[in-house]
């Protein structure tokens, strides 16, 4: 045998398990891929796991929403050489982070009818990238299978994967879809959102909700102004933008728009 297989761990913090499911969804390529790795810690797929050994590669999905999540994340970081954030929750916070300005006690009262509930050690939902450094970030809600495979194959070859950072808007134009903003006066996050999905939503006549998170330098102001100039209300703009990457947009100016929303 030439060299030993890399030890791999796959982990989910708080989330929908969609990114781990997308790994399982690589059906045709799953077993050949798994043969090249030594997957030693994957609770979702195996009942025998090593929770302490050193890992060459680890994939982490989900947000940090409990104290326990944060502990697990730090443990994973400490034992891993190359750490990959999988999915928009892990990279940006995603939907669970869309209203971090609302105190958890208020949400607890609404959901469990009493507060405080001490057994719920929930904290504000933040992305793992907020707490520890990651070598690679792969957003998407869920991740695209072809992108995951690209990351996995590059790492197995000892290389870093490369992605071109084009917006969803570019992929949408290449597909010659009718523009959701220009023709339908909708709030579409496609020009501010990282592509790779092949513009799935606009190709189904639905505006981009920004599920893959922002580009490196999104032109937030110009986009928001364009929506407003088309007669879309600030309330509507704030509502649509307070979804997948709300914490990012808040820093860019969404705070002003959100003030138009009704308070609870």
């Amino acid at each position: 045998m030439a060299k030993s297989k890399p030890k791999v761990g796959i982990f989910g913090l708080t989330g929908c398990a969609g990114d781990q499911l997308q790994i399982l969804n690589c059906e045709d390529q799953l077993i050949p891929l798994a043969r090249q790795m030594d997957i030693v810690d994957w609770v979702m797929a195996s009942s025998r796991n090593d929770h302490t050994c050193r890992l060459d590669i680890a994939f982490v999905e989900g947000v940090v929403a409990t104290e326990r999540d944060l502990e697990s994340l730090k443990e994973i970081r400490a034992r891993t050489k190359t750490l990959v954030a999988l999915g928009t929750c892990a990279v940006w916070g995603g939907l669970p982070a869309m209203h971090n300005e609302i105190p958890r006690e208020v949400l607890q009262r609404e959901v469990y009818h009493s507060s405080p509930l001490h057994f719920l050690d929930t904290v504000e939902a933040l992305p793992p990238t907020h707490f520890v450094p990651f070598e690679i970030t792969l957003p998407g809600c869920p991740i695209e299978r072809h992108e995951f495979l690209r990351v996995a194959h590059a790492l197995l070859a000892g290389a870093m994967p490369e992605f071109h950072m084009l917006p969803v808007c570019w992929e949408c134009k290449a597909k010659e879809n009718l523009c959701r903003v220009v023709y339908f006066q909708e709030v579409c996050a496609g020009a501010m959102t990282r592509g790779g999905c092949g513009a799935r939503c606009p190709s189904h006549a639905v505006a981009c909700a920004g599920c893959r998170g922002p580009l490196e330098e999104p032109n937030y102001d110009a986009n928001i102004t364009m929506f407003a100039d088309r007669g879309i209300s600030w309330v509507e703009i704030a509502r649509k933008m307070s979804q997948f990457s709300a914490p990012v947009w808040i820093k860019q100016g969404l705070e002003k728009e959100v003030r138009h929303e009704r308070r609870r």
Partner: protein
Amino acid sequence: MSAAGRSIVIPHLGRVEGHGGIFVKVVGGRVHEVNMDIFEGSRYYEALLKGKHFLDVQGVITRVCAICSAGHTVAALAALENALGIGSSPRVFKMRGLLTLGATIESHALHVFALALPDFLGFDSVIAMAEKYPREVTFALKLKQLGNRIQELIGGRAVHPVNTLVGGFGKLPRHRDLEEIRAALAAAQGPLAGFVELAASIEVPDFAARPTVFVALRPHEEGYRFRGSTLCTSRGEEFPVAEYRDVVREFTVEHSHAKHAALASGETYMVGSLARLALWGDRLVGQAREAFQRLFPRGVEENVLTNTWAQLVELVHCLERGQQVCEELLGLPEEEREMQDYRVRAGRGVGAIEVPRGTLIHEYSFDDDGIIESANVITPTAQNLANTERDLRAAVERLLASDVGSESILKLKLEMVARAYDPCISCSVHVTCL
């Protein structure tokens, strides 16, 4: 076995979706406490929906859980459309049905072959199983892929659909794509029948068997179907699904981030494939009927470990029924898009569907501008948790009495009970009431 106090702890249950564990305390030879610990974090989606427009609901609520994303989508859209007072066109109704069948094929294939079968064949994972059973595992993954292809075609994406809208679909499938799916469904029938034979040769243990109340939706038409508007119990009770709050009582327990549920009588119950077969199995036709008779020669018994075989019967059904629905859709003219017009007005609506793990109920209310005022989601796993604990208790009592062997064998058997329910823990943490 020692008669003194001891604890059996499975800190992190493997081969299930989400984060949970099992804790059992035995004092003086008697089982004192049995808990399914659910420590998955809460994401409060239903509370976060408040203030959003009803058109944004599906994109948010589908993300409660990836494996069940199509089920949440169909339930949410049905509830919202009921609130608006609009029905679905025949094409939209059939397409959502096909989406549900695709999701069930994907989910059942994943659970039966990758999560549960390793227990019965003595492996830790499907990846380990692939070394000894390469042909079987390859077919199982192909079947799962077929479920995903259907979801991709109808929903626009295998996980978290995008094409599914209030009132219709953004884009309709081409006839040639439907023909391909129909052919693939037909081609999978033979190999799946082989699996039914393999399953029939495996004896299912009965250490967790216990009298159980089964609950499932009455199918909306004669036949074995996954949608309906009446909740039925195996005791012969029936309730309109809109009155679910009178039937399903929820309560909070300290060891679980997910609420528990029981019937108004205080009895726990089971939802899922086994419950559906118990109530409506006599409606199965064709190969699904044969598979049912082969795997349940004495009919459905109250043993949750047979739920995996019930899923296998439903897989056979989904392959056959999927071909019929494709046929029906092919009988309609090929078109680009189908959307119903509607007027936004205040309303409240309930939608229910049988998803792979059991009955899923969504309820929403919104104001005249379409802004969400309240949301409630009742997931199958949360309904099953209290019943799972009772099955675990029965299993521990029986296994301790019969001297099962080593601690690790005892733990494995308890894990099998929990896994048989195919729990979806992400979902369960979102049983909420506003």
